[in-house]
């Protein structure tokens, strides 16, 4: 039964004003009835008897007087088994099914069931008479490589529910009743494997939030070693266009050592999503032996799709992430790009004629960004297991200038900052993360002293290089020049990584440790180098060996050969360890 209804009184872009009769609540969903079509929209402002709705579809053809139906429900997602491997739009509409029904183009007003009607092998965990709180497990179903917990719906009142009846082990449809629960007052409620949850409310059914300490391995050397990310942490990747944000996100989504990856393609190019869409079902995840798609969910609201749904898409993604976190799983949410989401907010704010803040972004921009990133975290669940949601968001600052509102608001709340630089990407130094400007508050997988030693060389090398621009190579001492060359060496053989090379694209931790140790010996040694020319020739030679080594698979016989060759090269010139390096290595 439609709770309430109204009539359209105005249309401005994707905002529609509606005069309503009864009561309407903020953020509730309404449908504009346009002939056969029902256009989904959300209430974003109420003033007297007039509600302003943002429409998640194109508004062409709407006229004044059109009927509007309110649902009384906030914008929600369906949660249950079958979410993995799905490709949704920002409102959780399954895109492949939509394509089957509508062909090449996205037809407006078509909303399909997000969770496919499928049967699952249910194993009960709870027994009749057990008492359960929301988010506690009723039973399990196997979903691909995971055990999917069927939980007491999170939207149930937070009281002790008694299991009144529960189905025995067997195969049941996803929307079939599997249990009946009774609250302390004796009211019975039926439970299936699916329930809904409003996307703008965080799921908080955990015991406590923990500090993120366990590293999340991305297999990108510069990140894992120098700018690490922790499970349950947050990080951002701001960068001008063409600096490689998306390639970096794509690499991470493939290689990250994590249970589930959710990709929120938010207002970016459709072509980029397609790569993931077509590649992941083909790529085998070495950890599980299954395809990468089995651990992936894609929320895809690309730039040409309606703007309002773009704003919803990041929330849809994070809600699904939190749902799987409740099963003791570790989830990585990659949002590309959060600037597009912020721009969607700006467009709506403009239409509402709110007083604009900096660069016309709304004044509440910072708090909205902060509360989104705060939905990340590692938590201890009721059964003692741990689950986490890690959020990595790209930022596309206007003009590549980090001094803009979205980048600044993001930097305030994240734990790691991977700033991409135009300079590095122009010189094809990928990933173009700037090693000196970027920072991370999380712990590295490599020994911290060694990392800071290498970082120091990068700093000094950069200083020398700046100085050389003024005084020239001839005005630079040999010692300084060698430092500069060493910093260049770190850059070209360790910081840079070829994401299109079949070997180099992923560097497992053991390999990073080995390569870093060998590199550290080069960095920490005083070397017998007679002049600048000899120094350059020597470093060039070492660099070549390292590059060949990086491109050689672990099980290739040449792997050890290159290692030996590098060590021999260093040994030939080795004089002694530099004082600080000797201390770190504990040698004399």
């Amino acid at each position: 039964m439609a709770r309430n209804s109204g009539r359209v009184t105005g249309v401005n872009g994707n905002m529609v004003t509606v005069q309503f009769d009864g009561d309407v609540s903020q953020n509730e969903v309404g449908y504009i009835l346009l002939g056969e079509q029902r256009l989904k929209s959300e209430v974003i402002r109420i003033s007297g008897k007039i509600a302003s709705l943002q429409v998640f579809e194109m508004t062409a053809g709407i006229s004044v007087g059109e009927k509007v139906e309110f649902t009384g429900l906030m914008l929600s997602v369906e949660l249950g088994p079958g979410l993995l491997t799905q490709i949704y739009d920002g409102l959780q509409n399954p895109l492949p099914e939509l394509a089957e029904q509508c062909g090449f183009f996205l037809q407006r007003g078509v909303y399909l069931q997000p969770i496919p009607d499928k049967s699952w092998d249910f194993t009960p965990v709870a027994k009749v008479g057990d008492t359960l709180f929301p988010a506690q497990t009723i039973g399990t179903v196997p979903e691909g490589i995971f055990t999917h917990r069927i939980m007491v719906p999170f939207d149930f009142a937070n009281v002790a529910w008694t299991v009144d009846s529960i189905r025995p082990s067997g195969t049941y449809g996803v929307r079939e009743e599997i249990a009946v629960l009774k609250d302390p007052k004796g009211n019975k409620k039926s439970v299936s494997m699916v329930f809904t949850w409003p996307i703008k409310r965080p799921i908080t059914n955990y015991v406590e939030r923990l500090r993120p300490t366990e590293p999340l391995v991305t297999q990108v050397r510069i990140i894992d070693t120098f700018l690490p990310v922790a499970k349950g942490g947050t990080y951002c990747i701001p960068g001008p266009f063409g600096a490689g944000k998306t390639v970096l996100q794509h690499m991470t989504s493939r290689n990250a050592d994590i249970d589930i990856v959710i990709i929120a393609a938010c207002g970016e190019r459709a072509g980029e999503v397609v790569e993931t869409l077509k590649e992941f079902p083909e790529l085998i995840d070495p950890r599980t032996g299954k395809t990468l798609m089995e651990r992936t969910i894609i929320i895809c609201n690309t730039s040409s799709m309606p703007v309002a749904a773009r704003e919803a898409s990041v929330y849809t993604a994070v809600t699904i992430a939190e749902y799987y976190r409740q099963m003791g799983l570790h989830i990585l949410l990659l949002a590309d790009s959060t600037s597009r989401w912020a721009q969607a907010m700006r467009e709506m704010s403009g239409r509402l004629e709110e007083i604009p803040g900096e660069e016309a972004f709304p004044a509440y921009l910072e708090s909205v960004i902060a509360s989104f990133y705060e939905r990340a975290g590692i938590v201890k669940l009721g059964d003692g297991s741990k689950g986490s949601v890690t959020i990595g968001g790209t930022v596309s600052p206007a003009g590549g200038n980090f001094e803009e509102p979205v980048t600044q608001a993001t930097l305030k709340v994240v734990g790691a900052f991977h700033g991409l630089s135009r300079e590095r990407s122009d010189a094809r130094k990928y990933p173009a993360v700037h090693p000196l400007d970027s920072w991370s508050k999380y712990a590295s997988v490599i020994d911290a002293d060694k990392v800071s030693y290498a970082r120091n060389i990068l700093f000094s090398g950069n200083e020398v290089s700046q100085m050389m621009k003024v005084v020239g190579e001839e005005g630079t001492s040999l010692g300084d020049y060698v430092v500069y060359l060493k910093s260049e060496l770190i850059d070209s053989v360790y910081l840079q990584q070829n994401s299109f090379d079949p070997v180099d694209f992923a560097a497992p931790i053991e390999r990073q440790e080995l390569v870093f140790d060998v590199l550290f010996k080069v960095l920490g040694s005083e070397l017998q180098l007679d002049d600048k020319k000899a120094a350059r020739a020597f470093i060039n030679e070492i660099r070549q060996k390292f590059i060949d080594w990086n491109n050689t698979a672990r099980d290739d016989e040449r792997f050890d050969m290159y290692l030996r060759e590098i060590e021999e090269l260093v040994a030939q010139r080795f004089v002694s360890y530099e004082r600080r390096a000797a201390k770190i290595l504990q040698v004399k």
Partner: protein
Amino acid sequence: MQKVYTKIESIAGNVISVKAEGVRNSDLAIVTSSHGESLANVIKLEGETVSLQVFAGARGISTGDHVRFLGYPMRISYSEDLLGRIFNGSGIPRDNGPELTDNLIEIGGPAVNPAKRIIPRNMIRTGIPMIDVFNTLVESQKLPIFSVSGEPYNEVLARIAMQAEVDLIILGGMGLKYDDYLYFKETLEKSGAMSRTIFFVHTASDPTVECLLVPDISLAVAEKFALDGKKVLVLLTDMTNFADAMKEIAITMEQVPSNRGYPGDLYSSLAARYEKAVDFEGAGSLTILAVTTMPGDDVTHPVPDNTGYITEGQYYLKNSRIEPFGSLSRLKQQVNKDTRDDHRALMDGMIKLYASYRESQEKKSMGFQMSEWDDKLLQYGDLFETKLMDLSVNIPLEEALDLGWEILADCFEPKETGIRSELVLKHWPKSAS
């Protein structure tokens, strides 16, 4: 619904408003004034007040003029008859041919379902080494040429148009200088390409609103042809004029500007157009090559900046050369793995060395002593610029790759190049040591 409204409530810029009932958002209307008829479309509804933008401009419209709503949105005729024809931004012929009215299609249609897209796979050869080798153009790509006023961007566009292997070319001209319009027309006529070309041209002297319609009209027609199995190349020049037209309307409508007066939805509006580029599985494809002039050579200006975030790369045109820095084809990785095994490594290696050359050049200009390494780089940079970068070079990809190795061998020892040893072994010219 053919009711005629005769009371225009307000006229501001090119936007008029009337009180009317039952009008739908985006519908068309005909405004009849003493200066003739013009189309207009609905851009805002507020109670009974309907705001319309008048395509031919509101100049000379009086409050007593007639507004007749047509009850349908903007449409354009789609048929083979379009080929070889020239239209203005409202789809009205500007050659002396007949008006086309059958098989009307709506413009500004819905987006393609991402799940229906396919990974681009075909290279478009242009014979320009800076494109073919370093930033390959790919079918279904959307790519702008970032340029300063005065650079030969329209010439480059015309050259690519004539050499590219496509079935159909649609030229969308926005704020085009009349000379440039004639240049395109003459060049394409001379090369015999006119019969597979459709022009939608808004020249600098035409009303602003028509400029806004050019991309939509061009892309709607292109999309239809692509669905019918044609490989279509859409050339849009100059998208900065389109953005400026949007700015003009937005400010007239009293929208809150976001950055340098441009409306907050600049990104979304540009994206809605560029994202029309697509390769339809089992049908044709639509590739967009656009020009974005950068006011004051400033890439951080909102128009090139937002464009760069949407398109799949960009070509920088500077000093009549396609700059290797900043120029980027994001889709090149899709195709350059299948061209030749050395393509990627050579491309990266040569650019890295060219970057070092620029540093050495800077050092030299500051009067520093040049090391042996600097001298090598300077020699390399010179060869690179004259043999590969010059826009007049017109050679196929394979020849360009060989030439690249020759240039390297002329200047460096293999291990100085930073290229994998096995590739060096295979491709290093035998004549060099």
